[in-house]
C-alpha cells in the first residue's frame, strides 16, 4: 500500500534546493584543484599571447617599411586615377571642339535641286 504524504510546497522547495546544491557542489574544499585551474588559465593566456597576429611576425622596421609601401601604393593609385580622369577630360574636350567646325548638311544646301524635283513631280501628277 502506497502512503501519500501531503507536504507543503516550502518543504518541497527546500528539498529541491538541497539536492540541487548537492548536484552542483563546486570543488571548493579542494585547494589543489584551484591551483591547477589557475595554472591552466594562465598557461592558456600565455599560449594565446605567444600566438602572433598576422602582422606580428614582422620586426619593427619591417612593419614601418610595409606601412610606407602601403602608403606609397595608395598615393600612386590616387595619382594614376587623377591622371586618367585628366586624360579623359582632355579627350572629351578635343572631340567637342572638333564637332563644332564640321559643316552641317542642312536644308539650305539641298534647297535648289529639291525645287526642280518638286516641279517635275507636279507636272507628272497633274491631270
Amino acid at each position, binding site marked *: 500500500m502506497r502512503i501519500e504524504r501531503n507536504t507543503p*510546497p516550502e518543504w518541497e522547495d527546500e528539498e529541491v534546493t538541497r539536492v540541487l546544491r548537492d548536484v552542483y557542489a563546486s*570543488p571548493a574544499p579542494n585547494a589543489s584543484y584551484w591551483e591547477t585551474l589557475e595554472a591552466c*588559465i594562465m598557461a592558456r593566456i600565455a599560449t594565446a599571447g605567444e600566438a602572433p597576429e598576422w602582422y606580428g611576425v614582422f620586426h619593427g622596421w619591417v612593419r614601418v617599411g610595409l606601412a610606407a609601401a602601403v602608403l606609397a601604393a595608395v598615393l600612386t593609385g590616387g595619382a594614376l586615377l587623377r591622371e586618367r580622369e585628366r586624360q579623359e577630360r582632355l579627350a572629351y574636350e578635343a572631340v567637342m571642339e572638333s564637332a563644332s567646325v564640321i559643316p552641317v548638311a542642312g536644308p539650305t544646301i539641298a534647297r535648289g535641286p529639291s525645287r526642280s524635283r518638286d516641279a517635275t513631280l507636279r507636272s507628272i501628277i497633274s491631270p
Partner: protein
Amino acid sequence: MLTLPEPSAREREHALVVAAQRGDTESFAALVRLHQRRAYAVARAIVLTHEDAEDAVQEGFLHAFRALDRFLPDQAFGAWLNRIVANAALDITRRKKVRDADALADTIASPFRDPAESAELRRRLTGALSTLNERQRAVIVLHDVEGYKHAEIGRLLGIPEGTARSDLHHARARLRQALSGVRSEL
C-alpha cells in the same frame, strides 16, 4: 608616527586591474585567484558538466584578458568577468546542445558528491533538470545554489528581472514535481 590605513579589498582589486592592464601577468594571476571560484560557480550553473564549466572559466578569463584594456577599472571587475564567463558558458551550451540525461548522470558521479544521498532522488532531479531549457536551469542554480538575486541573474544572463523570476518559478515547479513523485514512491 602616521600609519596609512590598510587598503580595502576593492582598492587592492583596483590596483591589480590597473597593473594587469599595464601588462603585469602576475597581477592578472592574482585576479584569477580572487575570482575563479565564483566564475566556476557561474559557469557550472549554465553548462551540464564539470568539464564544460572548466572550459567556460578558462575561455572567460582568456576573453577578459584580451578585453582588459577596454575595462574601466572603477567598475566591479567580478561582475564584468562573470558576465564574460556566463557568455562563454552559454556559447559552449549552444555549441554542444547536450540534452541527454545520461550526460547529467555522469556529472553526478564526480568526487564532490555526498555518497549517502538517495540515488533515486538525484536521478529524478537530474532527469527533470535536463527537461529545462538552459536559461531556466541557469536561473534556478544561480538563485538556489549560488544565492544570486533575480536582478543580478538578469544582468548576468542578459535577461529582464521579470523573466528571471518567471524562469525560476517554472523551473522550481518542474523540479518539485519530479521530487514529489519520488517521495510518494519511496
